[in-house]
Structures are given as structure tokens and as C-alpha cells.
């Protein structure tokens, strides 16, 4: 029973990692951009939720709704004013620019919010649990996992069932030919990054409720997100969920053997998957 409990805790934790990764996966799927500032943008979103919640005395679950349009605008603006100018055949400029952006965001947050740890206070829900037969699960981890499934489902629906998603996929396939269809790739990229930032804001909500955060947490979140995307297969949204769950389960199993092995176990699982399936578990055929 302990093993089943460990597996369930791992799966639920994987939901959080999938949320970290969802926006990264979308952006990569649309414009083949690896955003090294993604983790820091999650941290920024957490501070935005915190600031709104504090200023208006709102629950984080309400504050996050107000944070959505702000973070969408941040993503849209970043893509329009910065990232669109460095996208091209050479993958190095976007990597360097997003690395620089990561440094700027971290230092900006440090300047504004100091290095003190912060937390989003959601009230009783943080400690509530649910008995599922002999297993007890926390309400917040369960909510995190359900949210991750819903976010991935929603992104998948947008990507494969909507007019916007059609433009995403076509632009990803051939950014020159879409111009002949009247589509402006830079606008498509800006909307994709805006949506990715909305997903990052949901990740930030659960991150901030689950644990303390400070301006320096971004790079570690990026690492988990990156591993989840790679394990799942570049550009595959459901694969990203699977990748997050694999890291979560590996960490939970590692921690059950020795708490010091928790983080290492997730990284080992990442390396093992890469050795067996170098293109990830569910790669998009074109990648």
C-alpha cells in the first residue's frame, strides 16, 4: 500500500511539473524556440499573483484570474518586442537572448521583492485531504493534477481543433508559405507566447501554494519543465504531461528509498528515457 501511495503522490507531483512544462512545450511546438527564461517567467507570475492578492486582499485563486491578462500581455510583448527579432535559422541568438532575459527577470524581481521567501496563502484548502479508499490524497495536489490535465487538454484543443491552432501548426510547418495565406507569423508567435504565459501563471499559482518561492527559483523550474518536455517528445502536449508524471513518480520513488535521492531520481529517469528513446516518448513526426 505504501508503494501505491508513493506512486499516487508521484503522479500528482508530476501534474505540477507538467504545468511548468506546458507553456514551454507550446512555444517549442509553434516556433521551435527554447525559452530559457520560462522558469523565471513562472516566478514572475507567482509574484504578480502575490502582488494582486496582497493589494486587493484576494485569494490566490481569484488573483490568478486577474493575473492572466497581465501575463498574456507580458508574453505577447516579449515576443513582439524581443523574441521575434532573434528567431531564425540560427538557434543560438534566441538561446542567448532568453538566457539574458532570465538574468534580467531574476535581478528585477530581486530588486522589487528582495530575496525573502514568499508564499501564496490559500487557506484551509492547503491542508485538506480526501480519502480515496485506503489512500488519502491532498486536495491541493489533486487540484494541481486535475488542472494540469485540463490545461494540456485545452492547449491540445486549441492546437488541433481551432482556427488559431491551424495557424499555429501551419506557421510551425512553414513560416514563409503561411504569409501567402495572409497569416503574419510574428503575430501568431506573439499569441502563442501569450497563451504559454497564461499556462505558466496557472503553474505559478500551484507552485506558490505548494511551497515558498523567491526570485531565484526560476532555473530549477525550467530544468523540470525542460526534462518533462524532452521525455514527452518535443512539441507533444500529452507527451509533456507523461514526461511530468514520469519525473514526479521517479522523484517520489527515490524519496521513499532515501529523501536525499528525490531530486536525483528525477534526473536519472530523464537520462534513462533519453538513452532508450532519444526523441522522447511521443515525438511529433515532423520534429
Amino acid at each position, binding site marked *: 500500500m505504501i508503494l501505491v501511495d508513493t506512486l499516487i503522490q508521484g503522479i500528482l507531483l508530476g501534474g505540477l511539473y507538467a504545468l511548468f512544462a506546458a507553456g514551454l512545450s507550446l512555444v517549442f511546438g509553434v516556433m521551435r524556440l527554447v525559452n530559457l527564461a520560462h522558469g523565471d517567467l513562472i516566478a514572475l507570475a507567482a509574484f504578480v499573483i502575490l502582488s494582486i492578492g496582497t493589494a486587493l486582499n484576494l485569494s490566490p485563486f481569484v488573483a490568478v484570474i486577474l493575473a492572466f491578462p497581465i501575463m498574456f500581455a507580458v508574453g505577447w510583448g516579449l515576443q513582439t518586442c524581443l523574441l521575434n527579432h532573434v528567431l531564425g535559422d540560427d538557434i543560438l541568438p534566441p538561446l542567448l537572448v532568453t538566457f539574458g532575459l532570465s538574468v534580467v527577470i531574476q535581478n528585477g524581481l530581486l530588486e522589487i521583492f528582495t530575496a525573502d521567501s514568499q508564499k501564496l496563502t490559500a487557506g484551509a484548502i492547503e491542508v485538506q485531504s480526501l480519502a480515496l479508499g485506503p489512500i488519502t490524497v491532498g486536495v491541493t495536489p489533486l487540484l494541481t493534477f486535475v488542472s494540469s490535465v485540463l490545461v494540456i487538454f485545452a492547449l491540445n484543443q486549441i492546437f488541433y481543433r481551432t482556427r488559431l491552432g491551424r495557424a499555429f501548426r*501551419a506557421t510551425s510547418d512553414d513560416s514563409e508559405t503561411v504569409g501567402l*495565406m495572409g497569416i503574419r507569423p510574428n503575430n501568431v508567435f506573439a499569441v502563442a507566447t501569450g497563451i504559454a504565459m497564461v499556462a505558466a501563471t496557472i503553474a505559478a499559482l500551484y507552485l506558490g501554494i505548494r511551497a515558498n518561492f523567491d526570485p531565484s527559483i526560476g532555473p530549477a523550474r525550467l530544468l523540470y519543465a525542460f526534462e518533462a518536455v524532452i521525455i514527452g517528445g518535443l512539441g507533444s502536449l500529452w507527451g509533456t504531461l507523461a514526461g511530468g508524471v514520469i519525473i514526479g513518480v521517479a522523484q517520489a520513488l527515490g524519496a521513499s528509498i532515501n529523501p536525499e535521492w528525490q531530486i536525483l531520481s528525477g534526473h536519472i529517469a530523464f537520462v534513462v528515457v533519453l538513452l532508450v528513446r532519444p526523441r522522447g516518448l511521443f515525438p511529433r513526426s515532423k520534429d
Partner: protein
Amino acid sequence: MTEPLLSTHGLKAHYGDFQALFGVDIDIKQGETIAIIGANGAGKSTLMRAITGLLKNEPDAIKLRGESIGDLSAPEVLERGISMVPEGRRLFPSLTVEENLLIGAHTRTGNGVWNLASVYEVVPVLKDRRDHPGTALSGGQQQMVAIGRALMSNPDLLLCDELSLGLAPVVIKEIYASFPTIKERGASVVVVEQDIGQAMKVADRVFCMMEGRVTLEGTPEELSREEIHNAYFGVSA
């Protein structure tokens, strides 16, 4: 004299330091089909790319109904009613046949007769295979998807770049069989072809290009085999 639908005036085009077009002058009248023929490297596809906005130019180098469009982007050119079937078809691999058609009308649907139903009416096989990936079809069917995609915006001017490239003669014949229907429904057409015989069959006028210049112009009836040979290869027959 009526104003041409589209005209180019001393059109030049460059790829970096390499000049591909050297002052091209052509004009296309409303409802007309013209063919642009020439050997590889003659500048035919570059001319198409310049007209569609994929290569920027001087504003006055290209005029559509008298409006200067030489410096417009590809989406802006499409909005004004020019669409293109690009060389090599360039269907979107991630999209199904139907999605490839629908994306042709993503930003412009026009006021014409072309929509999903009318494209399927002209090419019924596409309806049968609408849920297949566009790139999973045969070469000829892919070409019909590319033509349908370009028609979905109901263009006033349809540019077709190397339709017959890599296709069997029987397939080429089937593709060109759809042209009378396209013309009947109002679009002017520019066909870029290496297949001279096919070009002469469909065109009202023919322009021959060599090394980035127009070397011959006339109706198929006016032009002799020897004139075309000279203009095409730059040598005497």
C-alpha cells in the same frame, strides 16, 4: 485603353548580392491567362515571389489596378486579391487536406464562388480524402490541394508556379483540365511553366524569360517555334 489588372515596371529583384531580375515589364489584363516560360534560372519563380510580396521591391515596380504594391508584404498582397500556388506545392504537413484548404481562406474569403464545397465539387477525390494529411496524397492530388488552397481566398489573380514539376504527363493533363472552370469563375491566371506545349495550350499570351529578362512576348498564335526556341535558350535554332 483599359488599365491592366497587374503590371510590373522595370522590376528588379536580388538575393543578397545576386541580381535575379533585370527590369521586367509584364502586364496582365482582367480575365486573361498568361504563361511565363523559360529554362531553369530564368527568373520565373523570382518574378512570382516578387509579385506576391515574398521579395520586397520598389513600391511602383508592381501595380495592381494602378495601386503600387511592390513594397507590400505577402499577407498584404493576398488581402488585395493575389494568391499563389507555390513551386513544390508546399502543403502544410501538420494539416489535413481539409485544413490545408481552409487555411487558404484564413484571412481572406473574398466574394467569389470558391469555398470548400466548390473546391470539392471540382476535385471530388479531395473530399473523400479530406481527413488525410495533405502530404500523404499523390503528387497530382497534392497539386490540386495547393490549387484549391489558393482559390479559397477567391483571388482576382491566381499565380501558379511550376504546376507540372515532377508530375506524370497524364496527371498534368488532369490538373490543367480544371483551368477552364477556374477561368469561368472570374480569376485571371498566371502560369509559370517549363513545359512549353502545355503553356501554349492554356495561355492567351506568353512571356518568355531568360536570365532575368523578358525576351519574347506574344499570343500563342503569333509566336513561331523558332522564335520561342531562340528566346528560351538564347541561341539560334
